[in-house]
């Protein structure tokens, strides 16, 4: 810098040498910073780039702000590598500016180089004169991507403490949900809603969390207020519909789903729930066609397959139901309900031996379920394994004495069966009113396997049907 330098023959008398010569003040580097920023935020990218180029020429490439803006513009245009080069130049000029590190981290994050991005943000944290929520937020995101949830949580909490931004809360909630800590997630949601009460996403998120926790009332409130702010929010509509469906107000639920399907016709969860609404209204054909649509969208969805099997059982198409049940068992061999359903289908197909096998498997997977036990007892009796049936009934009694709640239907059926077995042992003759018994059994089984509603619309991979249709 040579401005304001002292003259050699400095004369303290101002009057004498007033017009001698004026040393021009050199134009400061920052002269056009305001214009660069203005043009950038106005979206006049071309003019802005031109101005930056001129400025860099004027300052021999040593203009930090121009380089910074150039990096941002390049990133916005998708030239991530070049933008990083630009930020590196900035850092050579001024290694103490946290902003440069932050922008560089952002570019690296967009290039999916999370480790490098993390390092850049850590540097920014070191350089930054005061704690900055943005740095903490991005650190949290990087760590989450790198799979270090614990550290990510720390940073997210720091970010939340420093600011009341929606994105910080969302990040923290995401981390907590991935850890399975729903209680704290709900607490975070609540404080997040205090900070930004009109955020639809936050409202929906908290509503869905409440739904997962089984607190339907709060969930309903949250989702309703989300819908009041944005009536066409598909996720919230799905949640509200799900709650009303649970309360057996099927028409209300249907109206919600119909609205939602208008905005998102490709959602398998929506079609599935619509199908189950029709199922509960005993409109089985409509139910099957809706469920098939859901299956068309996501062919590997075991819940839809399960529901389809139920619907086919209800329409007395046991063979089709068996196919769907088989598919569910293949997809999810770890769910007891699938085997129970398979057993129901097999009973309907007059194959009690295999039904017993399926139920044994179900009982292995879920040992404490009285419904499976009573069903197994009935199946054993139908297959002729009378002693095993008696064992099952004794087991049931044990459970009932230990305080497991049995529904009226279960106890009725058990009593019925016990008296039948006794009669059988007494008279040693085959009772042949088994048909009636079987039908009753089926009905109950249908109740056990209640419609499964998915409460979060996660449309995973959609698959495409392609075929050569040439004749």
């Amino acid at each position: 810098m040579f401005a304001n330098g002292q003259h050699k023959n400095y004369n303290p008398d101002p009057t004498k040498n007033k017009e001698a010569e004026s040393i021009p003040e050199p134009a400061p580097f920052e002269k056009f910073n305001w214009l660069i920023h203005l043009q950038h935020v106005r979206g006049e990218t071309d003019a802005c780039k031109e101005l930056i180029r001129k400025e860099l020429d004027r300052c021999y490439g040593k203009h930090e702000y121009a380089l910074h803006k150039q990096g941002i513009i390049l990133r916005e245009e998708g030239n991530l590598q070049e933008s990083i080069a630009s930020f590196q130049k900035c850092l050579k000029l001024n290694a103490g500016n946290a902003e440069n590190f932050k922008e560089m981290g952002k570019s690296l994050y967009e290039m999916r180089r999370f480790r490098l991005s993390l390092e850049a943000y850590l540097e920014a944290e070191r350089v930054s004169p005061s704690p900055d929520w943005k740095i903490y937020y991005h650190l949290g995101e990087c760590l989450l991507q790198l799979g270090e949830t614990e550290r990510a949580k720390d940073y997210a909490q720091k970010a939340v403490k420093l600011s009341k931004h929606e994105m910080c809360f969302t990040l923290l909630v995401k981390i907590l949900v991935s850890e399975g800590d729903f209680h704290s997630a709900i607490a975070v949601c609540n404080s997040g809603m205090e900070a930004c009460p009109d955020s639809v996403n936050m409202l929906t998120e908290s509503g869905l969390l409440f739904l997962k926790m089984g607190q339907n009332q709060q969930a309903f409130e949250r989702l309703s207020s989300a819908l009041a702010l944005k009536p066409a929010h598909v996720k919230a509509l799905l949640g509200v519909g799900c709650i009303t469906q649970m309360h057996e107000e099927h028409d209300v639920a249907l109206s919600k789903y119909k609205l939602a399907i208008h905005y998102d016709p490709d959602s398998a969860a929506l079609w599935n729930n619509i199908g189950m609404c029709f199922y509960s209204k005993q409109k089985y054909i409509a139910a099957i066609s809706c469920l098939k649509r859901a299956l068309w969208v996501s062919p590997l969805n075991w819940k839809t397959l399960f529901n389809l099997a139920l619907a086919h059982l209800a329409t007395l198409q046991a063979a089709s139901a068996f196919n769907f049940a088989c598919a569910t068992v293949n997809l999810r061999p770890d769910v007891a309900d699938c085997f129970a359903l398979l057993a129901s289908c097999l009973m309907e197909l007059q194959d009690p031996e295999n039904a017993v096998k399926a139920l044994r498997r179900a009982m292995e997977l879920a040992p404490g379920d009285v419904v499976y036990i009573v069903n197994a007892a009935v199946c054993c009796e139908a297959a002729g394994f009378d002693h095993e049936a008696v064992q099952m009934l004794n087991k049931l009694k044990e459970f009932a004495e230990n305080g497991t709640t049995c529904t009226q239907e279960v106890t009725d059926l058990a009593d019925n069966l016990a008296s039948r077995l006794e009669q059988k042992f007494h008279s040693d003759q085959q009772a042949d009113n088994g048909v009636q018994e079987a039908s009753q059994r089926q009905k109950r089984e249908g109740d056990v396997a209640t419609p499964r509603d998915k409460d979060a619309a996660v449309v995973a991979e959609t698959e495409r049907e392609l075929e050569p249709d040439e004749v």
Partner: protein
Amino acid sequence: MDPFYLALSLFRRRKYDKCIDVCTSILEKQSLDQAVWCLKMRAMTQRIYVDDIESEEIPENDFLEDNAVATAPRPGTSMKTSQPPKTGALGSRPRTATGRPISGVSRPGTQNRPGTALDRLRTARPVTGQSARAIRLGTAAMLSQKEGPFIQVSRLNLAKYAKKSRTYLFYHEGDVRNAMELAVQATQYCDFKDWWWKVQLAKCYVALNLIREAEQQLRSVLKQHYHVESFIRLTRIYIRLDQPLSAMEICKSGVEVFPKDVSIMTELARLTEALNDTSTSVKYYRTIVIEDAMNTEAIACIGMYHFYNHQPELALRYYRRVLAMGAHSVELYNNLGLCCLYSQQLDLTYPCFQRALELATDPLVRAEVWYNLSHLAIAAGDMELAIRCLTLSISLDKTHASAYNNLAVLHHKTGNANLVKAYLTSAKELEPDLVEPQINLGLLQTAE
């Protein structure tokens, strides 16, 4: 019996080879008999005559094709920018690699798939638009002649001869340029009043890729005389110029003149289908079926409409009708199998696909059948089998992007993570317009 009478009778009974032999023997004796000469010429033409109205291949995405009127057409006014279907995965049909909706029947231009070996071979094909078949026919005819060409075309004084010889030229010799010269002379000779010659002239122009001239000829034909062929040819010309709306107008005026004419209606139905308006297209096909209950194309298209409209039972009925009419092909059995699968008739599904596999010889078609079989396995929840089917499909057709995508999804489900990304990227590279691999790649990256 008089040999000439015999020849005529043979011609009527469509025994063209024998007729030609008889004519040759007569001509050896009396070489100046014009009637015999004419008959021989007609027989030779008839022997190899094809209805070339269907064989015209419109090159899709041809970089040398500069006939299209607008380079950046407004939506709805061009085949390339026709309105996309409204719903996503549910309502829409799969598309061909060039972005057109897949159609119910195989027609010239519906089956192109860039990147296949077939296409790479075709790069050396002439861009004149004259169908390859016409050329092949021409050479075949030349080969079959023992004593050199029957007529030395170049020596003839074209103005003297009438229309019969023109067909001979076009079909038999494959010599379009001379045929056109003859047609021009003939039109002049008739004081521009004979519509037939003008149609022939237009045909020659189309073969030489002079589309605008052909359009002029056909326009003036329609002023003079209404004929189904000229309507259809004009429609074809507009489709080549990528002006589907004008083509539609021509078709509609054609239908007014010839109400319920099957071929014009077919043209209309195809056009609306190409413009993504499936319901209207099916309406036309239905009227066609009422007029002509044996029209395979219409029945197959209606069947496919029902299939993608989630009514596989109805589709099954239509395809069974096609089967009853005597069609016996891989695609038909494949479609029957799919209909059975989606209408819960599993006992029929396996035999149908088995037949399809037995009949399939072309590896590309076999690949499609295996692809569909993978859906059968998915419906049964058998992931291992599905993966095997898809692998087979890929081994037969290395460019099957959907198969790669689905394979990736299945591997993802079975927890085989390291293969997923590779399959998805190859799917994306093979068909950059396919949405699914892109979405899946995005999902994979966010889940990482």
